[in-house]
């Protein structure tokens, strides 16, 4: 196999980038869903929640067909690149960040919205305050998004191709090494993966408690 550390770093790079992308899309969506009252809002809300359980292999397959050279986005040449993996994981994490973020912001809005509006703030002006008050819940949303991306294998295997040194991540290496009967290596990577997941939630929990 490749060296251990580059695989771990590559996994983190892809998943953090995807979480970043999903935050850029999902968090504004969460705010708009929490504060706005616009036509079609319920539909979007149902869709966002419906996509929480989006199967990674389906995302992988659809993206594969789009990015393949025979597909509509084939000219971009993105299939079997880290960028394709980031795209797939962004799609997976966005509904999670939007749904959980919406819940966190809306909770604070119901609690303090009237007070904020009474003090003369418009919804837009109240948003930064709300976000600050809801940061514990938002952090949980981002963490859940990251957890989803770093642990999934179905999508990255299809659009990344598990190419050594290019698109091989922790989860695809575990799949590969299990196939070779190298359970020690697979398990070691599995432990790193679990360790990353536990450390991330610990950090968020501690940070959330201090600021609550």
């Amino acid at each position: 196999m490749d060296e251990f550390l580059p695989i771990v770093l590559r996994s983190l790079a892809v998943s953090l980038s995807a979480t970043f992308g999903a935050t850029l899309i999902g968090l504004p969506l969460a705010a708009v869903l929490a504060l706005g009252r616009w036509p079609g809002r319920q539909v979007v809300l149902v869709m966002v929640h419906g996509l929480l359980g989006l199967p990674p292999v389906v995302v992988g397959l659809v993206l594969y067909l789009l990015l393949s050279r025979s597909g509509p986005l084939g000219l971009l040449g993105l299939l079997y690149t880290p960028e394709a993996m980031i795209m797939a994981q962004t799609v997976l994490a966005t509904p999670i960040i939007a749904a959980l973020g919406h819940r966190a912001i809306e909770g604070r809005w119901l609690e303090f919205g009237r007070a904020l509006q009474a003090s003369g703030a418009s919804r837009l002006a109240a948003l930064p305050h709300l976000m600050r008050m809801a940061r514990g819940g938002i952090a949980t949303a981002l963490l859940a998004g990251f957890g989803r991306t770093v642990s999934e294998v179905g999508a990255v295997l299809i659009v990344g191709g598990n190419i050594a040194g290019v698109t091989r991540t922790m989860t695809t290496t575990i799949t590969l090494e299990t196939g070779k009967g190298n359970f020690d290596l697979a398990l070691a990577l599995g432990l790193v993966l679990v360790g990353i997941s536990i450390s991330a939630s610990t950090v968020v929990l501690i940070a959330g408690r201090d600021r609550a």
Partner: protein
Amino acid sequence: MRIVLAFLILLLAGAAQAESITLASTTSLDNSGLLGRILPLFTKASGIEVRVLAQGTGQALATAARGDADLVLVHDPEAEDAFIAAGHGISRVEIAWNDFIFVGPRSDVAHLAGSSDAVAALRKVAEAKAGFVSRGDKSGTDSLEKRLWREAGINPLGAPWYKDIGGGMGAALNVAAATDSITLTDRGTWLSFANRRDLAELVQGDARLINRYRVIELAPSRIKSGSPAAAHALATWFAGAQAQAAIGAYTVGGRALFNPGVKVIP
């Protein structure tokens, strides 16, 4: 967030350095470690980085047919014929060979051990209703297994002792080891497989079990990188002296996994 961006930049920089081509190949050549050993020699000589997609032969050919690879290295004569007939491939050269073997538990309820007749062996498997694991994934190994069943005049699909797992060679060997079943494997994957448990080599030596690996050069319209020259350079290199010597010299646990040998397939 700054860390994320720094990561991303590192990642992209790493991915974009040299000229690279994509080789769609089989799991047997990659999982056995052969390609990881010999391809750096090519990269060193040519400056061209090779990205290996390790897929079953069926999937590798489909990938190439969609235009998502630059060169193909597979082992399924019938599927290769169809691929070339469809106009996706323009030339085919055999660059290595070894053989397939039936492996199974030492208890050997179907009494296969020591036999060299692959078709008779399958008849015995069916007669004894011995557990049998099939790849079921249209790989080269899977196609050969299906051909041998046809030759034996038996349709095992749906039989309770016949497990179609739809997975790679390693997955099939894992299932065979865990359920005391027989399976057909290429020798390279078998020799480099680390979880054999009670599995042993049972049937080998049948001419029908020869496993030939062929490089197929793609029609220019199918080449992903737009660099037919680089793909041609790799195809030529596989058949050249350096690669052939490296293939013959590759061993796992002191045993050679592949035999070199170049043959142009008309």
